Structures are given as structure tokens and as C-alpha cells.
């Protein structure tokens, strides 16, 4: 009888190559997304480990000098952003800890305490400095300006993001020492949306960024929901302005910037702004958040050997290719770090388990999570990276946020 035929050297090389390709295509992304289901389902152990790490960062004294981007404005934005995103994460954990029982109540109380520490830091003069320097007027002082005065305008980044975090806190703690400040911020924002000629509010003098407006609209909606009131007319006006002026008709993506006078888009829409906008709008308008998320998924989302990534610019924009700025973070082969990270939150808010898992796999690969003593920190993330991932990984479902209370 014959023995089995002996494969020749090229056949063995082919076998090894096939095994390599099979390993490349099936193992790495599965290894990296193994925690994704736990985050998607909000499993306590996994989420609390990240929360503990973010609590450690935000418990330390961070200063603008900790974020030396080369621009004092961006350093300040990052300081403010770290506390704001951490506050969102803690607030979202508190919101999700709604089951009866002492464990859930204790978790909620701990999250609220951590959130309040972040809110205090977010409202501190150091965290307001970037906005004050740009406007030559403090954002919190501006809300006290008489309605219709020349100084009753703008500040939408600081007030919008702060108002959103304060609104989430109020949803969890209906009455607190933050209420008066929260009411003042939201009243000023609503007034400015209503008074704006194009329905959008400036971030800095003559600079309008729709994603910052999306955060402010989330703040208006959360305030109304927390106080069981009808939303202010400014919410409808702002949402309509985003829909008609800032969202590209062909791609459905959110423009990163629009002209301050005409509100004409200055770009064809970008991944970082659209994904973050979809996350913020989950608090204000479920349909618009879903529509924006679908656009991100359709136009920008890709998978590479199972890893989910998001392009910063639509493929149709030749002149945009490879462009990076402070919003996009590093752009590698067209894929944006910020766009990919923010899309994690947008996918969770819009109930897309598969995209969430593949995007998380990418965050896991490049974030290099490190677990120790019941904490998880992303080794390449630092305070801002950990805080953003914490907020995105715990983003609540839009359907549960915008339903009538």
C-alpha cells in the first residue's frame, strides 16, 4: 500500500501562509473585543474598574500645564474636557445603577460623589480660563448679562458641555447645590439659541462649531426632562438649525465648522464631530442622533481584519485626505483616533452591538488596557483618554433618554 503523498516545500509554505492569514483574520480582533460585551451590557465589574481609574485621575490635582499641546486654549479645553467627560461617565454609571438593592444604591452614591468632584473642578476658574481668554469675559459671568445685550452671546462650548454634565447630574439628583448654576446656564443657552440669527451659537467670537451646539442642545433637553417641563423653544430652533444648516445633504455628516454669519458649512462633514455629535444628540433628539450615527456608519466606518475604524473625512473629499487637527487627533491612513473613539459612544447610544464590539477592539488594541487592583487604565490614554473612553463605553441608549418621562 502507498503512504500519504508527501507535500512539496511550496505546498507546505502555502499551508503555513494560509494558517498565518487565518490567524491574522480571526484571532486578534476576537482577543481585543473580548471585553466589549461586558461594556455593552454595562457589567458592573468591568465598568467599575474603569471608573476607579478615572476617579484616581480626577482625584489628583490636574492643571492646564498637564496638557501641553502648544496652545493655552487647547490645554484649557483638554483640562475642562477631562473633567466634563469623567463627569458624564460617572453620571451615566449612576443613571444605570437603578436596580433595587443596597449594592446598586451604594454604587450610585459613589458615582454621584465622584461626579460632583468633577463638576466642581469643571466649574473652577482654571477650567473656565480657556473660554474666558477667548471672550475676555467669563462664561459664568456672561449668563448674568441682561438678555439681548451685546455680551449675551456665545460661550456655547463651555456652557453647553457644562450644562450637559450638570443636566445629567440633575437627572440623577433632582435637587442639589448645583441647581441655581444649572438653571442660569440653561436659561442663557436657550435665550442665545432663540436670539441667534441662524439658530446656532458661537463657541468663540465668530467661530461656530455644530458639535458644541449639539452638546448645548443635549443640555436643554436634559434640563427639561429633569425638571419635567416642556423644553425651551431654543431647543427646537437649535435642532432645526443643525438639521438644515450643519448636516450635509449628500452624506448626512455633521460639518465640523460653519460660517458664523451665513451658517454655510466649511467642510463636508467629519468623523470626529459627527460621532461626538451623535453621542450628544442622543440626549436631545433620538431620531437625529440615529440619523447621524447611520451616516457615520455608512460613510466612514470600516473594518480591517475585524477591527472597527472610522475615517476622519469622507472618501469623496479628495482635498481633505490625511488632514489632522486638535479635534481629529492623529489621523493614520485616513482613520481618525477621535472619530473612532467617539463612535464607540455613538454606537452604544444607538444600539449597534456589532460596531461597538469592533470599535472597542481597536480601542483595546491601541489603548493597551492595564488591569491592576480592580482598576483598569488605558496605558496610552492618560487622563483625557481614560475619561473619554469611560464616557463613551457607558453611553446610555438614546431610546431610554428621550422617551417621555
Amino acid at each position, binding site marked *: *500500500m*502507498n*503512504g*500519504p*503523498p*508527501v*507535500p*512539496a*516545500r*511550496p505546498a*507546505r*509554505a502555502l*499551508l*503555513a*501562509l*494560509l*494558517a*498565518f*492569514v*487565518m*490567524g*491574522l483574520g480571526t*484571532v*486578534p480582533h476576537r*482577543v*481585543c473585543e473580548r471585553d466589549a460585551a461586558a461594556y455593552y451590557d454595562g457589567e458592573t465589574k468591568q465598568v467599575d474598574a474603569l471608573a476607579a481609574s478615572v476617579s484616581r485621575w480626577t482625584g489628583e490635582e490636574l492643571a492646564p*500645564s*498637564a*496638557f*501641553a*499641546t*502648544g496652545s493655552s486654549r487647547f*490645554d484649557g479645553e483638554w483640562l475642562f474636557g477631562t473633567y466634563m467627560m469623567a463627569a458624564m461617565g460617572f453620571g451615566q454609571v449612576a443613571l444605570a445603577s437603578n436596580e433595587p438593592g443596597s449594592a446598586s444604591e451604594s454604587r450610585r452614591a459613589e458615582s454621584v460623589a465622584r461626579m460632583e468632584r468633577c463638576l466642581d473642578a469643571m466649574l473652577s476658574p482654571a477650567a473656565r480660563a480657556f473660554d474666558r481668554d477667548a471672550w475676555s469675559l467669563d462664561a459664568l459671568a456672561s449668563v448674568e448679562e441682561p438678555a439681548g445685550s451685546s455680551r449675551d452671546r456665545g460661550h456655547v462650548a463651555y456652557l453647553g458641555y457644562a450644562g450637559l454634565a450638570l443636566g445629567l447630574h440633575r437627572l440623577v439628583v433632582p435637587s442639589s447645590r448645583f441647581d441655581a448654576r444649572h438653571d442660569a446656564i440653561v436659561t442663557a443657552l436657550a435665550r442665545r439659541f432663540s436670539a441667534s440669527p441662524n439658530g446656532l451659537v458661537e463657541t468663540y467670537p465668530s467661530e461656530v462649531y455644530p458639535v458644541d451646539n449639539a452638546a448645548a442642545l443635549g443640555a436643554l433637553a436634559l434640563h427639561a426632562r429633569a425638571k419635567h417641563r416642556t423644553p425651551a423653544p431654543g431647543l427646537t430652533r437649535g435642532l432645526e438649525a443643525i438639521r438644515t444648516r450643519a448636516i450635509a445633504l449628500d452624506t448626512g455628516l455633521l460639518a465640523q465648522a460653519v460660517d458664523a454669519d451665513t451658517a454655510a458649512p466649511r467642510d463636508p462633514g467629519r468623523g470626529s464631530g459627527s460621532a461626538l455629535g451623535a453621542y450628544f444628540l442622543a440626549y436631545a433628539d433620538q431620531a437625529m442622533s440615529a440619523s447621524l450615527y447611520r451616516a457615520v456608519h455608512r460613510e466612514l466606518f470600516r473594518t480591517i*481584519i475585524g477591527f472597527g475604524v472610522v475615517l476622519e473625512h469622507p472618501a469623496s473629499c479628495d482635498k481633505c485626505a490625511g488632514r489632522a487637527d486638535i479635534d481629529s487627533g492623529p489621523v493614520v491612513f485616513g482613520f481618525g483616533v477621535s472619530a473612532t473613539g467617539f463612535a464607540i459612544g455613538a454606537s452604544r447610544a444607538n444600539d449597534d452591538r456589532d460596531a461597538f464590539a469592533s470599535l472597542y477592539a481597536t480601542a483595546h*488594541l*491601541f489603548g*493597551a488596557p*492595564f488591569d*491592576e487592583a480592580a482598576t483598569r*487604565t*488605558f*496605558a*496610552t*490614554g*492618560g*487622563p*483625557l*483618554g481614560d475619561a473619554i473612553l469611560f464616557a463613551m463605553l457607558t453611553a446610555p441608549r438614546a431610546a431610554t433618554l428621550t422617551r417621555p418621562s
Partner: protein
Amino acid sequence: MTRRRALVVGVLSLLVLALHVVLVRAMAHGHVAHVLLGSGNAAPPLGAALLAVSLVVVRLGAVVLAPGLLLASLASLAAHALFGPPRGGGAHRGGAAEDAGSGTSSGAGKSSDDEGSGGVAAADGTGLNIEGRAT
């Protein structure tokens, strides 16, 4: 892939995996991301920069490439165990001897001798047997 090369690839992959664990721990404990961020537009501290670059390279190797390389080396080792050393190709010293060995050890020649069919050169013993009966 030869057996020796497959073993080297396998061992290297395991070493990369171990190095990766060490680097992640070092980077997390050293708050390297914070140090790099804090350096802004100035050149980052050399140690922190080297650690970060090493981590990215080793992590890509450990997480993305190592599983495929381990599978490839396992496949090569399995082929070696099942079929013996590869034949053909000529680049491998001793390959010709291995080829001759497998040819002479096949059962075809033996069976044709045992049957006494007189067939000599053919490798297919079964065919020779049938011919013998017919004649």
C-alpha cells in the same frame, strides 16, 4: 517552513507576548501617556518616547502578528509530524536524501516483489497485481 524555522517562530512569538506584558505594565505604572502629553510641542523625554514606541510595535506584534505566526508554525510542525520532512525545492540540505528515503520505503515495490509478478519499475503495486492475474 522547516521544522527548525517553525520552532524559532513559535519561540519568538511567545517571547514577544511576554515582552508585551512587561511593557504595558511599565507604561501604565510610569504614567507615560501623561508624560508624553505634558511635553506638548517640545521633544518628549527619550525614555518615555522609547517606551511608547516599543509598546506600540511590540503590541502590534504580540496581538496582531503573533497568533498568525504561531498558527503558521503549528501548521508546519503538524505537516512535519504527519508527512515527514518536505521533499523537492532543493534549497534544503539533505532534501534529496529525504526524497530518496521516502521513495524506497513505500510499500509499492515490496508488494510487487512478494506477488512475483515480475513488474519492476512501476510504482503502482495494485496495478501490477491485476496484470499478473490476467496473464
